C-alpha cells in the first residue's frame, strides 16, 4: 500500500473536497456573527484530510455515519452545499427541512442516514447498517467517524465487540483531536493509543497522521477493501487537531482554553498546505489546477448561500409533522 500511486483524477477530486470543506466553514465563520444561522456549529477546520481520504474510497451507496462535527464528512461524501447551508439557516429546503440544524444533517441519496450529536451515539447505528449490509449481501461498506471523546463511552466498546463478533463490513475511524470539548485526552483516558483497543476485539488497529490525506487515502483503501471482501471491521486512529473552539466560530486561544503555541504548531501542519506542497513538489498537479479548484468552489459556496438565504422558512404547522 505504501507505494500505491494515486491517480491524478483522484488527487484533483480530493483537493476539491479539502478546499470545499475549508471554504464552506470559513463562510460560516464570516457570517455566524450576523446571528442568522441560529444553531450551534462544530467546525471541522484542520481535520479535513480524514473525511476526504476515507470518502474518496467510497461509492455513493456506501454508508457514512458522522457526529456533531459533521460538515466535512457530508461534503466529502458528495452532499451538495445548498441543502447544507439551508439547514444551517433553518430553511425548509435544508437537508433536514430545518428540523435538524448543523448537528443533524441527513442525505439518504448519498447514504448519509442521519447524524447524532450524542457522543458515540452514531456508532452502534452504523454497526446496524453494517449488519444489514451483511444480511442483504449487498457489499455496502460502512465508515463511521467519531472523536476521541466517543472512546470514553461504553457503547463504543459494545459496538466494536458486536461488529467483530459478526465480522461486519465497517471501518471505525477515530479522529483523535486530543480534546473532548475542553477536556484533554490525558484527563480522560489511561492509554493514549486508541488504535490499540482493536487488539482485544481481534481486529486490525492502525494509527495514521490525520493531516496527511494521501496516507489516509491509502490506509482507508486497504481497510475499506478488507471490509468489502468479508474480512470484518478495523479501527483507524487518525491524529489531528481542531483549529477552532469546540462549538462556534472562535478559536480556543481567545477563550483561554489552549496554548497559542500548540495551536500554531498544528496550523503549520495544515492538511491543505501539506497536500499542495506535496503535489507541486512532485509535479503531480500544477498550480493552475489548484487555482481552478479554488475558483470553482468560491462560486459554489456563493450559490449555495444565495439559495439558502432566498429559501423560505418552514410553516408553523410543520412543527407537528414527521414525529411518527
Amino acid at each position, binding site marked *: 500500500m505504501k507505494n500505491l500511486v494515486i491517480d491524478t483524477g483522484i488527487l484533483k477530486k480530493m483537493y476539491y473536497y479539502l478546499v470545499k470543506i475549508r471554504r464552506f466553514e470559513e463562510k460560516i465563520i464570516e457570517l455566524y456573527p450576523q446571528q442568522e444561522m441560529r444553531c450551534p456549529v462544530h467546525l471541522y477546520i484542520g481535520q479535513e484530510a480524514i473525511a476526504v481520504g476515507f470518502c474518496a474510497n467510497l461509492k455513493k451507496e456506501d*454508508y457514512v455515519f458522522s457526529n456533531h462535527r459533521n460538515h466535512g464528512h457530508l461534503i466529502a461524501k458528495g452532499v451538495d452545499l445548498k441543502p447544507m447551508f439551508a439547514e444551517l439557516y433553518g430553511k425548509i429546503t*435544508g*437537508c*433536514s*427541512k*430545518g*428540523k*435538524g440544524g448543523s448537528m*443533524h444533517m*441527513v442525505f*439518504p441519496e448519498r447514504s448519509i*442516514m*442521519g447524524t*447524532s450529536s*450524542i457522543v458515540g*451515539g452514531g*456508532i*452502534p*447505528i*452504523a*454497526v*446496524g*447498517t*453494517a*449488519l*444489514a*449490509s451483511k*444480511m*442483504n449481501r449487498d457489499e*455496502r461498506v460502512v465508515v463511521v467517524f467519531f472523536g476521541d471523546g466517543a472512546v470514553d463511552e*461504553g*457503547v463504543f466498546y*459494545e*459496538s466494536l*465487540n*458486536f461488529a467483530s*463478533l459478526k465480522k461486519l463490513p465497517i471501518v471505525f475511524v477515530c479522529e483523535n483531536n486530543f480534546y473532548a470539548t475542553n477536556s484533554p485526552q490525558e484527563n480522560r483516558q489511561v492509554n493514549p493509543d486508541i488504535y490499540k483497543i482493536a487488539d482485544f476485539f481481534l481486529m486490525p488497529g492502525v494509527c495514521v497522521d490525520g493531516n496527511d490525506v494521501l496516507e489516509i487515502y491509502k490506509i482507508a483503501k486497504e481497510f475499506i477493501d478488507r471490509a468489502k471482501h468479508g474480512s470484518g471491521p478495523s479501527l483507524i486512529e487518525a491524529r489531528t487537531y481542531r483549529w477552532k473552539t469546540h462549538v462556534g466560530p472562535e478559536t480556543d486561544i481567545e477563550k483561554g482554553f489552549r496554548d497559542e503555541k500548540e495551536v500554531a504548531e498544528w496550523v503549520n501542519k495544515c492538511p491543505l498546505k501539506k497536500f499542495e506542497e506535496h503535489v507541486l513538489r512532485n509535479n503531480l498537479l500544477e498550480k493552475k489546477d489548484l487555482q481552478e479548484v479554488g475558483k470553482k468552489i468560491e462560486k459554489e459556496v456563493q450559490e449555495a448561500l444565495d439559495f439558502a438565504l432566498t429559501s423560505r422558512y418552514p410553516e408553523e404547522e410543520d412543527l407537528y*409533522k*414527521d*414525529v*411518527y
Partner: protein
Amino acid sequence: MSWDRVPVDLSGIRVLTQKDEFKGERVISYREAIREALSSALGRDTRVFIFGEGVDDPGGVFGTTLNLHKEFGQERVFDTPICENALTGIAIGASLAGLRPILVQMRTDFMLLSMDQLMNHAAKWKYMFGGKVSVPMVVRTIIGGGWGSAAQHSQPLQGLFTHIPGLKVVMPSTAYDAKGLLLSSIHNESPVVFVEHRWLYDHKDIVPPEPYFIPLGKGSLRREGKDLTLIADSFMVILAMAAARVLEKEGIDIELIDLRTIKPLDYDLILNSVKKTGRAVILDFGYKFCGISSEVSSFLMENAFEHLETSVLRVALPDVPTPASPILEKAYYSGEEQIITEVKRVLK
C-alpha cells in the same frame, strides 16, 4: 422457580379464556400468539429478523421465540451479547438500511441501559431529519413481577416510554390482540415498544391462524355499560373484567375500555365513553405518579369536565420500588378488590 405465579388472586378471573365462549374456534395462549405473529412475520417478510439475549435458547423467551431459529435460520433469529444500548442502536441502523428488526429485551428493567439509543436516537430520528428517514423497529419487552422479582426485575416502565415524543407504546391484554398488534407493530414505520405482561402468557383466546392486523392507537370496548367507565391496559384489563362481573351482581353496570396502545392514546374512545357514563376509574399496571393513569385523568379534566359527575379515580402502582417479600409484594400489586373499592367510591 414459579416465575409465572401471580401474586394477586386470580381465582375465577380467566374470563377471556372461558372455553364455552369460543364455539369450536381455535384457541391459543398469549405466548403462542406472540410466537405465531413472529413466525408469520419472518415467513412473509425477509426483512424481518429477531435478536436479543437468549432468543434461540431452549426457553425461547418464555416460549415466544421457541425454535424459530431452527425454522428461519440463525442469521435471522440470533443470540446477542449483553449490550442493550448498542443492540438498540443496531436495530436503528438495520432499520435505516431497510430491514425490520425485532429486539427482545426480556425484562423491561434492562431497557434502562438502552435509553440513549431508544430516547435520544430511535424516537427522534425521523423528526430530526424532516421525515427523510424512518426507523421501523420493534422492541419487545416484558413486565410483571412476582416470585420476589423485586426492584430490578419487575419495573413497569411504559409510562417512561410514552413520555418521549416519537415512540409508540403497545400493551396487549389478550392473545388475539397480542398477535394482531405485534404484526401491526412490525409493519409500522415508527419505533414501537411492545410491552408484554408475563402474567398473561398462559391466557387463552380465539386467535385466527392467518395473519391479521389491529391498528395501533385504537382501543377496544371490552364491555358496554352505563354507570361507570373503567379504562385499563394490559393485565389490568383482566382484573377489570373480573371486577365488572362482581359489580354486575350488585347492579352496577360497568363499561370497560382496553387501551391496547398507550401511545398514541385512543382519545375518542375514552371521551365518548365518559360522555355517556359520566364516571371513570383508570387502571394502569404502572406507577401512579406521572403515569398513564395521570395522563388519562388529566385528559378527562381538560376535555370531559362538563360530562363528569364525580372525580376521576385511579388504581396503579404505588410510588415505591417493587419489594421481594411475598407479603409486601401482595400489598404492592392491586387486585380486583381495589378496583371494586374505587368504583364504589366514585359511585357513592
